[in-house]
């Protein structure tokens, strides 16, 4: 049964912890699909800033070839210039990308998402991933039975 809580994205109550009825109500609504309409939509506004820790730890690289420019200010990089590199390998001036990541959490070029400090948004992302996984599992199951 260890997998049960995990699959539902829940956790067991701690010793002496009381159940949160509001949370249960919310889960009930969620599980029975009353929120389908809402859930089908994307995050209703610009996603929150990237977590400060992640931004601070983005690696710095040196420009070695000519012809590339910063997608934010569109200025050409000079050879030997130090720039910040995102995990998706897109390079930006450090000041340019920090202003952007202070607004929202994704690469301006390819929308690769960095983690945020916003608990609600992270929960939204986990739910979305979980429902995508469910869909995929269903498709696999369906194909294994009917193909």
């Amino acid at each position, binding site marked *: 049964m260890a997998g049960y809580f995990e699959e539902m994205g829940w956790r067991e109550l701690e010793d002496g912890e009381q159940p949160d009825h509001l949370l249960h109500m919310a889960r009930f609504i969620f599980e029975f699909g009353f929120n389908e309409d809402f859930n089908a939509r*994307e*995050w*209703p*506004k*610009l996603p929150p800033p990237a977590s400060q820790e992640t931004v601070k730890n983005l690696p710095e690289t040196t420009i070695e070839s000519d012809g590339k420019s910063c*997608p*934010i*200010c*569109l*200025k050409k990089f000079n050879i030997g210039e130090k720039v910040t590199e995102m995990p998706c390998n897109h390079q930006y001036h450090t000041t*340019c990308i920090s*202003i*952007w990541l202070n*607004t929202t959490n*994704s690469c*301006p*070029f390819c*929308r690769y998402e960095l983690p945020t400090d916003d608990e609600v948004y992270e929960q939204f992302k986990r739910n979305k991933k979980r429902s995508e996984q469910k869909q995929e599992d269903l498709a696999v199951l369906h194909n294994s039975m009917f193909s």
Partner: protein
Amino acid sequence: MANIAAKRIKREFKEVMKSEEVAGGTIKLELVHDSWTELQGEIAGPPDTPYEGGTFLLEIKVPETYPFNPPKIRFMTKIWHPNVSSVTGAICLDILKDQWAAALTLRTVLLSIQALLSAAEPNDPQDAVVAKQYREDIQLFNLTARHWTNVYAGGPTAIWEFNQKVQVLLDMGIDEDQARVALSTFDWELERATEHLFS
């Protein structure tokens, strides 16, 4: 205006001027009284749509915080489209709102708006009346959009029957744009449009 915004618009302007689309006449970008905060865009109605042959002007306002916030863009040329307000020209397009990214440019935004003319999103409407017509009677929608393109954007196809009906309301002393909106809204039924205008 903040330095980074002005500098970037200048660089973008150069990029647009060199682009294939400008050479091919499908998009255009001009400065409005030599400031970098206000520009005028122009897109050609895409082929095989009711907007074909029309030229649509767009008002572009660049915020101080550009490119970290999207430019504010609306249609100055009146257009009948589910994702554009037939009254104000306001556009419902995700990249102009929550899906904005700093690497998008005025060129890519104008191309996206042009793409929106080819592929409307009636389930995410800006103008509920237009979207309803789009969903319920696509043929009538296409005719109406073609008529608007002819009247406001210089499109080639005049719809004789619609022009006649607008003229009837004009003769009653009703403002032309108002008459056209009312007729378009009431599926070109003269009686219902008249009733609405006089109620």
